[in-house]
């Protein structure tokens, strides 16, 4: 059976591992390209958000390659993402593709449904303990990938030779991809971080600190956000991303109290949980401001409902806590040059602000 899944940043390494070990032939979704987007835009509803269109496009690409099963995540709303599976399936069936779609909703919402879907995913001949072992391994890999990205962001801002971190990073990804058993993954874990840390750095540099908030898909997928982390990193800016895939899954599925501090920070501005990343975006902005960050960049797909609510509230947060916020709405029309010019201008502004702030500080001391 040929199986495939949505492409989301580098997380494909973890999902590929899981499905391969479960005895499937995996068709790894190709990195999204303009072709993917064109397919998506052609068949998706006009106001569907960017992630919907990219996913639809990449489903078409993998179905063309012969995928028979599509595995995707669901949700319980009110963000639209929870309905993606349902609508995607209808659109693709309407186009004449023949496949099975398995949508995994958060398990505690409807346990019977979830078990049924997991059973559909487990092939005969694979024992339950093997199944759980591989799920755990895949989770370990995903966590490692997140850690790797975090480390890369720290190092990239201080690297001496531009672009070196990114090179080493892709080497490390290859190493992780090749690790199979638990033992190998644990070994590679140390090694991958170590080779990243061996990149020569300028330790005296005090880079600008910028936080990235927004909708998870746009933040995680470099094609959609024009590789913003790398772009900023190579400008010498330390980027702190607020969302990582494993954290997100953990907080939405079992560790609901894990982000209590974010919600608490958002409370003066937004009391109601609006799902998506609305409340997190507001809360994280407050936290970034309190932790002395120089600026915040909000990434949102055009027509994303929770982010629009967040955007209208963040304006006030920005004013109250004196932290510059740049919102970038991304849709299929957004051009790379436009976004990069805006980012450059924003970073210039932050630099100027920081410089002025330092001057002021010195004057006070004198």
């Amino acid at each position, binding site marked *: 059976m040929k199986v495939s899944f949505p492409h989301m940043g580098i997380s494909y390494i973890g999902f590929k591992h899981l499905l391969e070990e479960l005895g499937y032939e995996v068709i790894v979704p190709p990195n999204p390209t303009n072709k993917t987007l064109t397919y998506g835009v052609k068949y*998706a*509803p*006009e*106001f*569907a*958000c960017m992630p*919907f269109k990219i996913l639809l496009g990449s489903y078409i690409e993998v179905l063309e390659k012969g995928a028979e099963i599509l595995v995707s995540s*669901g949700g*319980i*709303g*009110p*963000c*639209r993402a*929870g*309905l993606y599976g*349902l*609508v995607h399936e*209808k*659109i693709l069936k*309407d186009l004449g593709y023949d496949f099975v779609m398995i949508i995994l909703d958060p398990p505690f*919402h409807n346990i019977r449904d979830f078990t049924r879907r997991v059973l559909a995913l487990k092939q005969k001949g694979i024992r339950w303990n093997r199944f759980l072992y591989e799920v755990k391994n895949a989770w370990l890999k995903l966590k490692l990938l997140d850690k790797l990205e975090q480390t890369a962001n720290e190092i990239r801002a201080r690297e001496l030779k531009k672009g070196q971190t990114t090179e080493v990073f892709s080497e490390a990804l290859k190493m992780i991809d090749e690790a199979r058993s638990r033992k190998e993954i644990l070994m590679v874990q140390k090694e991958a971080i170590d080779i990243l840390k061996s990149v020569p750095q300028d330790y005296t540099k005090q880079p600008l600190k910028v936080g990235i908030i927004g909708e998870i898909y746009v933040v995680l997928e470099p094609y959609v956000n024009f590789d913003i982390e790398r772009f900023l990193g190579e400008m010498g800016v330390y980027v702190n991303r607020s969302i990582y895939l494993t954290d997100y899954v953990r907080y939405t599925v079992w560790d609901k109290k894990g982000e209590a501090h974010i919600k608490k920070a958002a409370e003066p*501005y*937004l*009391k*109601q*949980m*609006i*799902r*998506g990343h*609305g409340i997190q975006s507001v809360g994280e902005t407050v936290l970034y401001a309190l932790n002395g960050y120089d600026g915040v960049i909000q990434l949102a797909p*055009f*027509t*994303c*409902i*929770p982010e*629009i*609510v967040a*955007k*209208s*509230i963040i*304006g*006030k947060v920005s004013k109250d806590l004196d932290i510059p916020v740049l919102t970038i*709405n991304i849709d299929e029309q957004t051009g790379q040059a436009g976004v990069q010019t805006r980012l450059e201008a924003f970073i210039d502004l932050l630099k100027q602000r920081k410089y002025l702030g330092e001057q002021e500080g010195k004057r006070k001391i004198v």
Partner: protein
Amino acid sequence: MPPKIGFPMTLTYFMHFPLWKIFFTELGFEFVTSQPTNKLILNNGIKEAVTDACIPIKLFHGHVMALKSKVDYIFIPRMVNIDKEKHITFCPKFLGLPDMIRASISNLPPILEISLDKKNKGKLFLYKACRLLGRQLGKPFNKVLKAYLKAVKFQKKFENFLVSKKITPIEAFDYLFKDKNRVNNTKYNRKQTDREINKATSLENNLNIAVVGYPYQIYDSYISADIINFLKKNNVRVWTMEMVPYSILKRYSNRLSKKLFWHFSNKVVWASYHYIDQPYIDGLIHVSAFGCGPDAMVGKLVELECKYRNFPFLNITVDEHTGDAGIKTRIEAFIDMLRYRRTA
């Protein structure tokens, strides 16, 4: 003079106006709504709201601006969950509405904000919300209880009225608040409904078109280019989702493998399925707003269903730049097509 409570004439207005009107009037307040949407309200809304918000939210900002200087309180209920199913809620913009308004409009009078949240507050959520309102406004318990009971009764009457008489909420408001004698037997019963349907469908010349969409779009005559009245002028009997009793709508809830997450969207999808099934309906018009998140999903689902069933379907998207003429031409073409289809 009693203190004034302002209620923006959009979003939940078309659904809950009778309830709040009676409740606040009984408590001894003056309950004022803003004007029906006009150019000024729209422009103010566009100015105050974030640029990528959908048009109903922009209008809501405009309506609040219009009320701002005229009232002592602005009433914004936070709609969270009013269905039996716990996970059916409202669009996130409804959930964050009071916070959005507070953050984007300055110099507001105090906002009366309550959550209608059945999920967390249980079956008596409406009573609890009303009690909280009463407490915020400093009214005695027995008075609040009395007002609540009367309001709920009236709201029930209003809802039954829509279903049994098959009229739009706007018409129902006219009946209920102006011409009280005509409201006698408003209880929903099957026979009477069938009679209404027969009466409407017996006219040979009349087309029967179902107009589905959120109440705050299709009944807002300014933003929807007055689609309901325009259809009526063209000898079309208009059917909307409020005219279908909930018990019938619910039968369609299992058509999709998963219920949608939003109260209004579910109703739109179910009502569309219902009307597609009815032999007397000639065509379906779906009115959606530019940039409406849920509608992207709803529209596609309805469109695909119509495609399978070979049912005439027209999708109209409205935004702040939509000209009347464009929409009207499209509707006329649709009507012509339906008439042609009938004779062919």
